[in-house]
């Protein structure tokens, strides 16, 4: 097994072009486990931890460009006001040690439907910047993951960054695990309210082959908010609307039974999480929290 250690982004892309089968290494919280369990023996690993450019975030075009190598600890510490949904999700990742190592880019690269960072990216309409020596392209996060642990990265491409709009309203994230810390999601739900755009974003984790959007729930809630003038009045959202939103979110999931939980429970819990996160977000919008 060969381990390449580029020190610049250009070198990293060149290495990936030269070794299209190489597996990129960021925090290593997924890859090293697979190596230790003898599940995977790539011929080449490209260690990206020495590429300084990946570890930066900046404001670009009114949004945040999050380098793929920024770890969860920094997302929590530095981006809680710009990307609150992602920050809440980052707090639920593993242990402090894992959050110090794990990166949002790595979560995308693994493309597990249970990736904690993915639902907030979906809910906020994140776009993923993919790079190769030949150039750069940007794909919506929903198009990035195509199946469990599979994505659209070409063999010569690496994930450069994640582009997300700065939050214009409340964002929430909630995750079910069968213990109270250090747990992989049984199901998770992310919600973004965008008052200026009068739009609602959702993301469902661990309840489908890829992170999903609850499109009908979004349209329903946007409809209610518009019809009742609630964006402007900041009035109370009816219990019925909250319940219906939860139900539609639940119906948008495509879960399976597995060792972590049953499909029925995943569907059920998504309904509860969607309702609760909406109530929290709306309370926050109303200024009552």
């Amino acid at each position, binding site marked *: 097994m060969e381990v390449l250690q580029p020190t610049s982004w250009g070198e990293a892309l060149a290495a990936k072009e030269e070794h299209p089968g190489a597996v990129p290494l960021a925090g290593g919280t997924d890859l090293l486990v697979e190596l230790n*369990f003898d599940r995977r023996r790539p011929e080449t690993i490209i260690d990206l931890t020495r590429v300084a450019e990946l570890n930066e975030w900046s404001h670009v075009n009114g949004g945040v460009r999050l380098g793929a190598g920024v770890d969860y600890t920094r997302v929590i510490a530095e981006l809680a006001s710009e990307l609150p949904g992602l920050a809440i999700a980052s707090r639920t990742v593993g242990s402090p040690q894992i959050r110090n190592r794990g990166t949002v880019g790595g979560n995308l690269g693994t493309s597990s439907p249970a990736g904690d960072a993915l639902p907030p990216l979906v809910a906020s309409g994140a776009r993923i910047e993919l790079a190769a020596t030949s150039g750069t392209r940007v794909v919506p996060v929903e198009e990035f993951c195509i199946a469990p642990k599979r994505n659209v990265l070409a063999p010569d491409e690496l994930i450069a960054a994640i582009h997300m709009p700065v939050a214009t309203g409340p964002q929430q994230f909630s995750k079910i695990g069968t213990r109270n810390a250090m747990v992989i999601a049984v199901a998770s739900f992310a919600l973004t309210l965008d008052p200026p755009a009068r739009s609602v974003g959702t993301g469902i984790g661990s309840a489908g082959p890829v992170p999903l959007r609850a499109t009908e729930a979004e349209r329903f809630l946007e409809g209610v908010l518009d019809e009742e003038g609630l964006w402007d009045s900041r009035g109370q959202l009816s219990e019925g609307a909250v319940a219906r939103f939860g139900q539609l979110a639940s119906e948008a999931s495509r879960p399976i039974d597995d060792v972590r939980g049953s499909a029925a429970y995943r569907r*059920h819990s998504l309904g509860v999480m969607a309702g*609760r996160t909406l109530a929290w977000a709306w309370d926050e919008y109303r200024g009552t929290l």
Partner: protein
Amino acid sequence: MTPTKERTIAPPVRGGVGTSARRQDSVPKVKGEFAYSSDLWAEGMLWGATVRSPHPRAAIRSLDITDALTVSGVHAVLTHEDVPGRKLFGMEIVDQPVLAWDEIRYEGEPVALVAADHPENARRAADRLRVDYEELPPLVDPERAVEPDAPQLHASGNLIRHARIRCGDPAVTADVVIEGTYETAMQDQAFLGPESGLAVPAEDGGIDLYVATQWLHVDLEQLAASLGLPQDKVRITLAGVGGAFGAREDLSMQIHCCMLALYTGRPVKMMYSREESFFGHVHRHPARMHYEHGATREGELVYVKARIVLDGGAYASSSTAVCANATAFACGPYEVPNVQVDALAVYTNNPPCGAMRGFGAVQACFAYESQMDKLADALGMDPVELRMKNAMSTGSAMPTGQIVEGPAPVAELLRRVKEMSLPPAGHDAPLDLRSLPGGVSNTTHGEGIRRGVGYAIGFKNIAFSEGSDDFATARVRLFAAGGEPQVEVHSAAAEVGQGVGVVQIQVARTELGVERVTLLPADTTVGSAGSSSASRQTWMTGGAVKSACEAVRARLLERAAGELGGSPSDFSMEGGKIVSQTNGIEVSIADLLGRDSIEETREYRHRKTYPMDPETGQGDAHVAFAFAAHRAIVDVDTELGLVRVVELATAQDVGKAINPLSVEGQIEGGSAQGLGLALMEEIQVSNGRIRNPSFTDYLIPTVLDMPPMKIDVLELGDPEAPYGVKGVGEAPTISSTPAVIAALRDATGRALERAPVRPEDVVGLTEREVR
């Protein structure tokens, strides 16, 4: 100075019995410098790997090692043909192949061994071993296994043991009758240090094995038999043990590692990965238990009928003894005049099950305590009051006919946990997610939460039962160095993290009045200490050290009498000196000994026990009993099924706390392990295959799952035991599981008949479905 001529314990020495003396291994462990068995290394050593069956049941048609041998760096590929001696092993029943030859009985069963210069090469070679399996449908339902037409997995049949209790009138009736069926899942011991060791071939043709284990001498006997070596050619030294909880009682890599070392003539190290570890040791027996309780309207128990089926998996391990315990403790610590119990341990093609903390008493306690709550509900009685009304006490007869001697403070323990103050309801402002069900995963800000309170009490035997010749050996040497007396203690008691090391040191300090006590490494150059299990080591090895110290002291006093005149009984030991009680003459131990040393070895035996009668279960099978009660307080998110245990309170009689801090540690750890079984710990087995062999999916409690504890330690003193000690390690594991689940029932009103309780069960998606 005491005027009596009776032997008195010398004036307090620092760090003696009853103090929280610092452990000999605590500082290196905290600093990360402690050498665990996985840290072993020898010049020129090879790495061993195990080839395991991917199928739970199969016939082996052929085995071809040719390819595996061609992998670079490979020094040996061994199969059953290379086992030098007995091809089977087993602690109680010798039924488990060292390496399988014709039939595979569980997923992960060892088939071949590889030694190579690098672990990676060993694994590559293991992948290249060609085994032609004929897959067979696995027998995975323990009830099915005892049907007459079931395929027979062993020549002896599928029934490992059927233990019975027949006590009182089988036809008796009662005013109030309740029934229930309960299940407990397969729990893993989840020790943090996977199986590992280093075998070094010796010049005399023998072998030196350094290994993390629980009982050196039972390993030795089995190793010698399978290696075809006389026992004096097999020497075992305990390596640093990273937890045990029963899982190291059976052999794992011991014979394999020695076979590879003897074959290659090189030191060989083996170290399981976490995944392999799930296949490499026995687990807690899953149990299915049907109970019927009859009581008077006033709440007096009239009868208990129980049928308990324990899935022993592919090999017997300690199933016979686990089955005996489930039987003997089937009714709980209550007086029940009429009892019918049938407990079966059976072979299946599931992973082998054996010893785990609580050993048969855990499963039964979940069932009988669930029944007591159900009965209280049917009677409209307070569940603690019902328990206290039926509590056994000293002098009570067990359903086995054995009279309970020694303290049996069942009602007292219940009263104490009941009377402890309750934690405040509600939640702190500002909101702290860590104090809520779901924790930092942000699932509730208070919605859906209901609080519940549950109680349970459990008990279990201390030390080995049913007539086993249970003893422990210790050697104690007193000598002087630099003008100071020193003591060396040597035993084979396995320090598995529980603290038996410092217990031995504390006993020697107290008995000889000497502070400088060194504990030698546990090995087989001294006699057996028995197993570090059954809550027995403090009592047994503590007792052996105590009696060896007494023998040393007697010789020292004889020597004093010889030198100074008078009789030995005129002298006592005080603070490193020998003092004459008649004329006050003192002499220091160092001066008295000069260059000599005094050494004594003693075996300690507890009183004799007897087998349970195979038809009636009657017999004085046990030495003594440990009791503990728990109160659990939970907050349940009733909509999501997530749980936060707010507090665990416990009261336990430990007889005498030799090391109070260690006692608390055992109680907290045992309670946590019971909480784990209540809420999350389960090896999920589907058609004979383990679905979650990792710490990603086999969940154990974190600091956010395990609450602060209130601990009330009673020291009632067992007259049978040295210093009055009782074993402390297992009792807390037994009652915490039913207490937590009782609290969940209190909060949700659901039946919750299976441990662990999953979120699905709490929200009612699996109602009435005992899987």
